[in-house]
């Protein structure tokens, strides 16, 4: 009621004159005019903002792409950089493709559209498509990365509710050939493994291709020969590495079984697993390269020093056997070439627990390998390093490392004694033969003399020892076999072996390391039932070298017997034909 009285008062106040009412109205007209001016100015400002500031200016600055990203967050597809091998062969590239999505709100007849789609796009199941088209919401993926032909057929349907987004599909032209090194990505282009993962940010930025050190030709040879060895010996899998020991460049690296990086979801865990860098295994006798080098470098014994390998070595409750017991004292070259576990254990004992552990640490056997991919296994070494661990570690048991560990560390020893760092990324302007300044390591592991002796010993393994099948005439291969028993349920299983061979060539000035490892090979008639590194991996490495050396333009250099590196070691070998086994001579170099 008070409102009424106040209104009446107000009316009475103004009623005095019509003039005052008109004056009031004219004043209020100005007010309304001002109100509308503000409203129109706001709308006009917004029009200018949208058309000029958000429309024209970004185009002038050439940032239309960025603008598009801002307005449509789902179109963040920038062309991902290519990955190539060292010769520019494409290993991974990106193709622009159209991906199909539906806006169910714009689809009036889902049944008809689903039927037409299942006809136009292989793999579009009618029921599933229909279910998607009937969902609520405005966005549902139907099929990513269509072929141009599929896209054409869908465009022909002329259905407004079916729309495309440009995406970039990652293509791996070499298929599974270098799958574990190059890696793969998700549907959304994110790197999930290998170089694609570790260089994800860089590749995502686009730009220049990333060149790897791999040589796809060598990769093919290595994979073929490793695969052949696996098939021949009915093995579970394997791994192979070719490394330039001078530069540390990985020229080839294969892990079998492998997978198609185009479709990683179809691969089993075994296929996806990277045996080269992620898997760690007890390497077996290839480890003797390091225990022997440690002995030669730290204790500087004469090569004629003998070790009693006549009876199994008992340490505490452990007993160490030899595969092929010789039952007599052996010189250092004999221990190495016959791969005597007892001899190596005794060598380890000589080096001492502290000395051997530190040596292994220095050559990188106790840390994850330093390489540019993320899938790296941490070596398994005894937490409490006791003396028995020293004995077994000397011949490659009780410690697990990745194949790349063995290759890199042994390369450091044979290349002259300085540490080499393996790498997968090609240094700019570097070709075969050019020295990689970054890889001219100053970190000395062993003396040049020790390095030379190790080269001699490894050559001897091929000329007279366990790896005679690895020799390639003219390329003077040297190396070391390894045969480790796998641990099954905490016990060594004699039937399940990991057989490997690490070869270098040419041995007088080692340039390339070739490593092949075969997991659980089974002996064949041809190998007289043997499944050791010498029978399984050594011939495969020989085949790789026989194919790769001519490909790289290396001329064979056949040497006379007396010029061969191993010749000067011959005097330290017992002549097996003589009963009792007398040493021929004791002369040193």
């Amino acid at each position: 009621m008070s409102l009424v009285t106040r209104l009446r008062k107000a009316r009475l106040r103004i009623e005095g004159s019509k003039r005052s009412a008109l004056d009031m109205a004219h004043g209020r007209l100005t007010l309304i005019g001002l109100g509308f001016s503000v409203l129109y100015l706001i709308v006009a400002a917004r029009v200018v903002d949208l058309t000029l500031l958000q429309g024209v200016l970004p185009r002038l600055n050439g940032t239309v792409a960025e603008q598009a990203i801002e307005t449509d967050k789902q179109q963040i597809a920038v062309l991902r950089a290519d990955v190539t091998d060292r010769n520019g062969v494409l290993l991974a590239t990106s193709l622009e493709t159209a991906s199909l999505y539906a806006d169910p709100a714009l689809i009036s007849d889902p049944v008809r559209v689903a039927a037409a789609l299942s006809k136009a796009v292989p793999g579009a199941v009618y029921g599933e498509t229909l279910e998607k088209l009937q969902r609520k919401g405005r966005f549902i993926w139907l099929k990513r990365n269509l072929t141009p032909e599929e896209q054409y057929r869908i465009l022909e349907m002329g259905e407004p509710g079916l729309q495309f987004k440009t995406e970039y599909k990652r293509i791996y032209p070499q298929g599974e050939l270098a799958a574990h090194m190059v890696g793969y990505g998700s549907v959304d282009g994110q790197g999930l493994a290998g170089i694609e993962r570790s260089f994800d940010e860089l590749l995502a930025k686009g730009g220049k291709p990333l060149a790897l050190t791999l040589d796809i030709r060598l990769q093919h040879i290595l994979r073929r020969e490793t695969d052949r060895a696996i098939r021949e010996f009915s093995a579970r899998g394997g791994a192979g590495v070719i490394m330039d020991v001078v530069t540390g460049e990985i020229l080839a690296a294969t892990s079998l079984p492998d997978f198609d990086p185009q479709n990683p979801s179809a691969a089993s865990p075994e296929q996806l697993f990277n045996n080269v860098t992620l898997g760690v295994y007890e390497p077996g006798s290839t480890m003797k390269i390091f225990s022997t080098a440690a002995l030669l470098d730290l204790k500087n014994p004469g090569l004629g020093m003998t070790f009693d390998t006549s009876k199994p070595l008992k340490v505490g409750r452990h007993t160490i056997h030899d595969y092929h017991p010789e039952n007599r004292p052996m010189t250092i070259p004999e221990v190495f070439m016959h791969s005597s576990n007892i001899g190596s254990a005794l060598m380890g004992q000589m080096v001492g627990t502290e000395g051997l552990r530190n040596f292994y640490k220095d050559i990188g056997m106790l840390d994850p390998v330093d390489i540019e991919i993320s899938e790296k296994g941490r070596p398994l070494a005894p937490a409490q390093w006791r003396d028995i661990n020293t004995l077994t570690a000397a011949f490659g048991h009780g410690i697990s490392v990745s194949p790349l560990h063995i290759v890199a560390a042994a390369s450091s020893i044979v290349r002259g004694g300085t540490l080499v760092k393996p790498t997968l990324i090609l240094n700019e302007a570097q070709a075969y033969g050019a020295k990689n300044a970054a890889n001219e390591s100053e970190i000395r592991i062993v003396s040049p003399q020790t390095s030379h002796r190790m080269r001699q010993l490894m050559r001897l393994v091929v000329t007279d020892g366990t790896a005679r099948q690895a020799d390639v005439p003219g390329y003077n291969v040297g190396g070391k076999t390894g045969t480790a028993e796998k641990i099954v349920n905490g016990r060594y299983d004699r039937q399940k072996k990991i057989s490997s061979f690490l070869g270098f060539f040419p041995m007088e000035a080692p340039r390339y390391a070739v490593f092949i490892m075969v997991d659980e090979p089974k002996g064949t008639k041809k190998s007289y039932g043997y499944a050791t590194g010498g029978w399984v991996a050594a011939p495969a490495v020989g085949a790789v070298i026989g194919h790769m050396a001519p490909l790289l333009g290396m001329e064979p250099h056949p040497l006379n017997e007396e010029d061969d590196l191993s010749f000067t070691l011959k005097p330290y070998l017992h002549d097996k034909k003589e009963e009792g086994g007398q040493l021929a001579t004791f002369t040193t170099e």
Partner: protein
Amino acid sequence: MANGMFSRTDRSILGRWWWTVDRPMLAALLALMILGVMLVTTASPPVALRLNLSEFHFVIRHVFFLTPALFLLLGLSLCSPRAIWRIATIILGCSILGLILVLFVGNEVKGAQRWISLFGFSIQPSEFMKPSFAVLSAWFLSRWREQPGFPGQWIATGLFLIVVSLLVLQPDIGMTVVTAAIFGAQVCLAGFPLWIICALGIGGIAALFGAYFMLPHFQSRMDRFLDPASGDNYQVSKSLEAFREGGLMGVGPGQGEVKLSIPDAHADFIYAVAAEEMGMWFALVILGIYAFIIMRGLKRLSDSDNLFSILATGGILTMFGLQSVVHMGSSVNALPAKGMTLPFISYGGSSLWAIALAMGMVLALTRRQPRTSVAKGGSIARGFFARSDAQQGA
């Protein structure tokens, strides 16, 4: 040249009309009609094809409705204020009847009953209600100010409450807001103290809050404006895209793509089509024409000494301006998306007649009144007596 058609001393109806009518405003309205035909021609064919109609279905219908609308506009502008008052009374009566009828026999479209079929046309009674209500409430309010003891303000308020409650029952929030704005402007012009106007404004806002909680579709529309991520903003985001695409000069007549994806390109988003195809300058020209009509009308009123004319025209201009601001504001996302046609430009069928009715009344009421008509007495002309005083004051 045009002036040559009629001599200043021409005393015929047309001659008097020519010299008294607001010719610049008339020109601006004709310009809007021409632009409307252009824009409906470019914007509507994709919409028509989507609805399985013939390509030029909307163009033909637009011209079909526009021609009578033009005659309606011109015809009304010839009328005297008294005639306008009579016409408005009849139309308001009919449209209130229609509003009641709509509740029972209306065609339900998108959750609201607003349309009624009449002689094969779909007619929205609320469209015709707005201008006639403005005229009637202006008459009551001006009577209240000029004739002490006449409770015009209460009659006007009652009338307002009746039409608003009919609109809320549909429900039609947009129309309610526009009607409330008309009445608010008139109350303001009629000289109600500002605190009452503020109170009414607060009441209006409270009513909007009430609507927010009562009407789900209104709530979702507000939510989408306040937080674009919360729901479907398809038309608005497409509209913004069109403005950015258009830039300064546009992509060219007929070259726009937004009309292909906006369902209401020919009606509620025709401004976006204009901006995309012709660019910023064209969008600003359209905006300028509306602003000119409003400012021109208000200026004309500030020279007038007829309170009835001021209130009626002020109310109708508010309606006209608000409708244009809401349409343009929605399409640039400065306001919540409200489907409102751009007066005279959008395809709107019978609503074109309603807007022609409104602006015809404005033209009639803003005509310079010859002195001779002052002597006429009667309730309508009562306010005209003050004229000579006001002119001396001006």
